């Protein structure tokens, strides 16, 4: 009997703790003007974790550089194009977007659309360039956390977005829906991997899972709706490009050209 009462009390206490945590997270997010939740800030990760994420990111960046060199040798306008897309991703990920449920602002990643247009290899490079400039001049992310941010925003975001888009297009899903889901998954994959990196970096002596869960809960108010917003924007962008400049989508092999006419299917 005593044991059951104790167990119930513990569960109740844990529930209270979770409610308190969620409430506190809301208050914190509402207090902040801009919740730049996607990038891990400078100094958060200890040296060993920072190095590990650099090691993980390095082969992907190297692959992106190899691909850029190869494609630039065929079409010299490719390098300026990738640089300009990186500038667009930089601007998109600096733009505050209202997140109604949290009463705050956050920002989209932009890697979903860059992966759809350039492919995941070059999209990793685009993210690396944008993150480097943001870290150095805007204190958005960091140089020591650049590796970790490339892994979450560049690698996870780009590959998740690209694979989703290609898979859905393989099932003849329309452009908006495929773009929407790709943007959504790219955003959520970034947020999920950021949570893993953060929890593993700051856990110290504490166990991983409880901290990971708390970080996930803290991100939910902004990232859940933001993912949906980013999905809508990515879908909208793909459709806008299809309507206004289908030649660009054909050039980037997003859609096929049938008899010189852009074919959505």
């Amino acid at each position, binding site marked *: 009997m005593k044991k059951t009462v104790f167990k119930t009390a513990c569960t109740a206490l844990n529930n*209270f*703790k979770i*409610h*308190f945590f969620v409430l*506190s997270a809301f208050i*914190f997010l509402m207090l902040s003007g*801009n919740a730049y939740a996607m990038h891990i*800030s*400078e*100094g*958060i990760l200890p*040296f060993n974790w*920072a190095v590990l994420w650099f090691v993980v990111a390095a082969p992907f*960046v190297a692959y992106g*550089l190899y691909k*850029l*060199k190869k494609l630039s*040798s065929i079409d*010299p*306008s490719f*390098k*300026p194009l990738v*640089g*300009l897309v*990186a*500038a*667009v991703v*930089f*601007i*998109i990920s600096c*733009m505050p*977007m209202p997140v*109604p449920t949290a009463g705050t602002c956050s920002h989209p990643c932009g890697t979903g*659309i860059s992966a759809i247009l350039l492919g995941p290899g070059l999209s990793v*490079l685009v993210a690396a*360039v944008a993150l*480097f*400039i943001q870290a*150095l*001049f*805007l*204190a958005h992310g*960091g*140089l*020591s956390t650049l590796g970790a941010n490339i892994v979450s925003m560049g690698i996870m975001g780009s590959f998740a977005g690209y694979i989703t888009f290609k898979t859905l297009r393989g099932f003849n899903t329309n452009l908006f829906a495929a773009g929407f889901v790709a943007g959504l998954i790219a955003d959520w994959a970034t947020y999920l991997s950021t949570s893993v990196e953060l929890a593993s970096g*700051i856990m*110290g002596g504490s166990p991983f899972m*409880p901290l990971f869960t*708390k970080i996930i809960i*803290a991100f939910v108010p902004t990232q859940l709706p933001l993912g949906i*917003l980013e999905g*809508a*924007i990515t*879908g*909208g*962008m793909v459709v*806008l*490009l299809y309507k*206004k400049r289908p030649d*660009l989508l054909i050039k980037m092999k997003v859609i096929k050209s049938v008899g010189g006419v852009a074919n959505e299917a």
Partner: protein
Amino acid sequence: MHLFDEYYKNNNLLTRVDVRIKLILTFSLLVMVLCSNGIIFPLFIAMLCIVLCKFIDIPSRVMLIRFSEPLFIAAMLLFLKFFFTGHEPLFCVSIAGIDIVGYKDGLMEGIRLSSRIIGAVSLIALAGFSSPFTDIITGLSWFKIPSQFVDLLMITYRYIFVLFEDAGVIYNAQKNRLGYSSIRSGLSSFGTLSGELIIRAFDRSQITTQAMFQRGYTGNMPVGHSASFKINEVAIAVVIIFAAGVLWKIM
């Protein structure tokens, strides 16, 4: 977004230092801050960097904006560590039937983490404020960063300003026509803005390539050559790293 180029115009002692020396110093001190187990060393570095930022006349408002995001994150982590990790309770308050427990070891860990963030951010902020981008590019080339990456950095940096201006014009036009008056119209406007930027990026890439080839572009961007190191700057850097190493060990 605040245009970050305007703060390099001052010709002062720090901006005149060889960018390679500044990069080596920043990297060395950053490693020490990240490996620091205490709170005094990172806070000491932060204080030093803030003083140096003031010395090169960086406005306090600009510094506050630069530090606002990392400070918020530091506060959030301190809070997270204080209330949700730890074993040794410092206090327990009951509010509306909810027990709020603050842990002593969690608080210490949170303070350590926050001081590390503030120290590291201050270092990078000082490096950013005191080095023009073109100098950083030259420095990175000297450190054998792949030329493809350096080229991309240069192109991206150049066109951020151009595209940002375009984005501003489109945004203001949309805003004046109530493009952001509701969530639905805001989303549609933002999607159009982003799509328009992508189209302009594609078009500009063609024009840029043509213009670059007319100016003798051969596939790689020319990067300024680094002058030879100045003995006095190297000596000062060695002394600073040694002194910081000793302080790091003591603190």
